[in-house]
């Protein structure tokens, strides 16, 4: 059986290197396992809240803080581009990378463009607020909505 820790580690190493969350087939190729075995690993990792799967469960939707699909939270750092799941996660990508970069997002209320810059390990912008709509105890009721 494929080792879930190996799968998780590969997912994050790939995301941190390329900005993209790998598909099941590339993980299967990496470990010389079947895609079925990889998807069983996905399911176990999702049950443990270590990944979130796309509807249907065939591929990863979130390897927090990375999103496998485009979102309104675009992250760039040098040549790496990625998508975060939310403003917390998009800044989290820069925190994980430990590098300067920017997040191109928009106001959740009015849609006005908002760009945040991390420079020398600090967030440059000071004005603005971040809004959470779901109490922490209910985040995992529907993490995609959260």
């Amino acid at each position, binding site marked *: 059986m494929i080792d879930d*820790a*190996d799968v*998780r*580690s590969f997912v*994050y*190493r790939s995301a*941190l290197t390329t900005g993209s969350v790998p598909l099941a087939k590339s993980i299967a190729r990496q470990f010389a396992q079947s895609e079925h075995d990889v998807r069983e690993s996905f399911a176990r990792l999702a049950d*443990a*809240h*270590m990944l979130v799967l796309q509807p249907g469960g065939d591929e990863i939707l979130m390897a927090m*803080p990375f999103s496998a699909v485009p979102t309104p939270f675009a992250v760039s750092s040098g040549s790496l581009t990625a998508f975060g799941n939310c*403003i*917390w*996660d998009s*800044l*989290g*990508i*820069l*925190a*994980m990378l*430990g590098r300067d970069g920017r997040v191109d997002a928009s106001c959740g209320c009015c849609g006005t463009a908002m760009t*945040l810059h*991390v420079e020398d390990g*600090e*967030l440059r*912008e*000071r*004005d*603005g*607020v*971040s809004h*959470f709509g779901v*109490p*922490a*105890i209910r985040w995992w009721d529907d993490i995609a909505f959260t």
Partner: protein
Amino acid sequence: MTLDQQWRLATGWYAEDRGANDWRRRSLDEAEELFRSIGLTSEFWKLR
């Protein structure tokens, strides 16, 4: 929350090596302590 709190939450939560094989999710106590450390102390941030 303020953007300063948001950045501290992002760094506190994610500035670790999730690619490490021995990485584990933080416990509820650890998560709540992180929230408290950046001033997120209301009922909204309680995990149980």
